[in-house]
């Protein structure tokens, strides 16, 4: 079975830190940062990038469209 490796880019300045992406990540890649962005939100980031499979679930549920998803087949 083919396996995939993914990565996400979060537009941290536009992220509102709602956490919906983290709650819906099937492999627990995303966490909310301890740091805040310019609007004071704890933005989402890849806390465990090695686990990312590029499924785009996070992008799909992000209410602000701040997540861009990349994926390669290994």
């Amino acid at each position: 079975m083919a396996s995939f490796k993914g990565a996400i880019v979060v537009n941290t300045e536009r992220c509102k830190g709602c956490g919906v992406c983290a709650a819906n990540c099937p492999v627990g890649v995303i966490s909310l940062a301890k740091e805040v962005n310019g609007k004071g939100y704890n933005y989402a980031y890849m806390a465990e990038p090695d686990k990312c499979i590029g499924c785009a679930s996070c992008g799909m549920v992000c209410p602000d469209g701040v997540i861009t998803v990349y994926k390669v087949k290994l």
Partner: protein
Amino acid sequence: MTIEDIIKPENLVYQKSKLLTEKPFHYCPGCGHGTTHRIIAEVLEELGVDEETIGVAPVGCSVMAYDYFDVDFQEAAHGRAPALATGLKRVWPNKVIFTYQGDGDLAAIGTAETIHACNRGENITMIFVNNGIYGMTGGQMAPTTLEGMKTATTPYGRKATLPAGAGFDGIPCNGYPLRITELIAQLPGTKFVTRQAVYNPACVRKAKAAIKKAFENQINGKSGVNFVEIVSNCNSNWKMEPVAANKWLVENMLPFYPLGDIKVDGKLVEK
């Protein structure tokens, strides 16, 4: 393989639709409006109809939806979006016309416009975001507010009739939550009526497919309203964290507003 090796244009699998402008949504963190906007934009982009699309924005939280979609837009008076869509579609039968409305707009002040646009069978697409509360004005009762739900105008919970005590039991109070979607599905003028949600990836995919069908029906058809309800959240006025609000939605909204197609190709779906 490093992250830099993965983040390359050729490996792109998901990004925000080009039919959304650069303007950040003013919606609260976690609000389903943003997700719904995103998938509408994706559908319009995939269908390639952006040059023929005219959207109609409501009054409510999504009043400035026109700032976010890179297509022509008109801003309607409260509840009148279906009238605007009718006025447009009748003189531009080949354009793609859609309304975007909340529960107060579509199911309270605009009930007449909603029912009559649906009953005339206007060849339009209507997107209805139902979060059971008035968001913009600060969390007052909506026609779709669940019984028992606390809002700014039902601080002790919505009561259809007054409860026992003080001798007033049974007298009408706040009325019942309105399933407007089931109601308009009964009208011969509706073609496709469905209820969807956007709280997790699976339902976002289904909602997007439904919205796509609602636009394709319009493009390929001559008459019949294509109506998509999105059961959504209102974290701020439900006074919950976004993730908790989505859980509350699943546990409380969905039993009363069950997801799925209600009418397909003009025929009510057998349950």
